[in-house]
């Protein structure tokens, strides 16, 4: 069947497929190629009469230690957020998949993933309201606790971490839940009937079998967090300079697009390395 496509079928195939892929080419693949090209020029062609092909944009990353240290800061942030999402989200997925049943489970699952599909900018903004000094969280804590607490959370790294965990937690819960749901209950019952404790079942059966899903979720958190710029801007204040915000600046404030393009491509390279490292596991997660 794979080889003998009827000419009429071939025409139909082209008619059905071409518009979608043409669009993706024009709006995703060509732009990425253009950006790669512009990361190797001195000035934006069109803006100036003279421009040269150069490696200096990439050289700038090596010359100025600020960029490397910001990349490191962004990677550390992504690592922290990913670990927290796993520690908080995996137990939650476990409860959803193996402890709650039927319509309750369906409703709870929907409630967990619903915020993830709502506006991320607005959710980050809502944390700015909660965390601000003399804000709701501080008032609530002081009403409950006998001693006075002064939360100085807004415009700190902690605030950025809280906001990002809130934004990306549903990814880990979603992928872990789907993987855990695929683990047959019979397997667990069999282990239990042979005297395995709950901890043994988790460690020897559930965790290994759902690991691809868990890691897929971790990658889905890690990748966007490395490139985040809006969350650090809103919640981080002066502490909120990260690799992503520097790229943003090149395009909207400094207008050094070639440097921005080079910085973006270095970020893309980091992302691709992460995806490549995870791809054997991710491929397993798909099945």
């Amino acid at each position, binding site marked *: 069947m794979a080889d003998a496509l009827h000419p009429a079928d071939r025409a139909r195939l082209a008619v059905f497929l071409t518009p979608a892929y043409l669009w993706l080419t024009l709006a995703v693949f060509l732009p990425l190629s253009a950006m790669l090209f512009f990361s190797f020029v001195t000035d934006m062609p069109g803006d100036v009469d003279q421009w040269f092909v150069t490696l200096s944009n990439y050289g700038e990353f090596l010359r100025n230690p600020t960029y490397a240290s910001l990349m490191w800061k962004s990677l550390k942030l992504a690592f922290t957020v990913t670990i927290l999402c796993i520690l908080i989200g995996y137990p939650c997925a476990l409860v959803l998949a193996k*402890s709650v049943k039927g319509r309750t489970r369906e409703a709870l699952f929907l409630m967990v993933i619903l915020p993830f599909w709502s506006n991320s900018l607005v959710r980050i903004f809502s944390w700015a309201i909660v965390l601000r000094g003399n804000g*709701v969280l501080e008032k609530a804590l002081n009403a409950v606790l006998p001693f006075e607490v002064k939360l100085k959370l807004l415009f700190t790294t902690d605030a950025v971490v809280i906001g990002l965990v809130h934004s990306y937690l549903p990814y880990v819960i979603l992928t872990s839940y789907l993987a855990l749901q695929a683990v047959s209950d019979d397997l667990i019952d069999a282990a239990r009937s042979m005297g395995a404790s709950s901890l043994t079942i988790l460690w020897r059966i559930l965790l290994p079998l759902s690991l691809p899903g868990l890691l897929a979720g971790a990658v889905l958190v890690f990748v966007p967090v490395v490139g985040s710029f809006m969350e650090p801007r809103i919640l981080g204040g002066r502490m909120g300079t990260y690799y992503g915000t520097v790229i943003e600046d090149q395009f909207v404030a400094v207008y050094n697009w070639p440097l921005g393009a080079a910085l973006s491509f270095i970020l893309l390279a980091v992302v691709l390395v992460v995806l490549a490292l995870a791809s054997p596991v991710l491929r397993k997660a798909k099945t």
Partner: protein
Amino acid sequence: MSRAFLTLSGRVWLGLILVFLYAPIAVMAAMSFNASPFYQLPFEFSTVWYQKMAANSQVLEAALRSVLIACVTTVIATALGTAASIALFRYEFPGKKVLQALLFPPIAIPWLITGTAMLILFFSIGIGRGTPAVILGHVALALPYVIVTVSARLASFDRTLEEAARSMGADTWTVVRRITLPWIAPGVVAGALFAFAVSFDQFVVSYFLSEPGDTTLPVLIYTAIRKGFTPEINAISTLIITLSMAVMFLAARYSKFGGDQ
């Protein structure tokens, strides 16, 4: 540890996570009805921020533009995406795996990179910034979601139905219209709602592609937040998040996403 204790602590954990996920949104919604512009307590009910918002023409224009862009994106992405899914499902051809893999980059590459890349290309070929550029970008981001959703629905499609119709003399167009499309309709509706949500909530790509002063709602909100909080922003944000959650709730119902399948 007894199993009953484990079950109980699991439920408590789940409850705490739901509080963590919804509390800030609830606080924001409550504060949008608070009279104090500095979110001062005690709470005093007022709809003044909603009135101010309704009187702000910039906000209304941005809101209208966001809805318009989301609708156009939904129509285009759903049409192109559904056609592509049907072709990918129906035919076996060399390079099919590659085409399917090409859906991955728009989802997996951080929007910061895709958005700035679009800005660079659109500027150098003369499209520039503005609503057409934003729509170009949004459709590209929404397409993979539509194709994945519709393909998932198609996977459960019984091909013998098509063969039966064909053997009784129906031509391809009739088969698609009378058999295939009705079957995948729930997937298409879900895909369309996903596309709407991707566009309506999209901030990063709109931010780089929209003309200053001629922006979408999320970009307007971002600019306003960076200039300093105002409770009006709070009111718009509350409306937006209610709308997008409603859309996604419908999408989830249609696609039976996450149920016991």
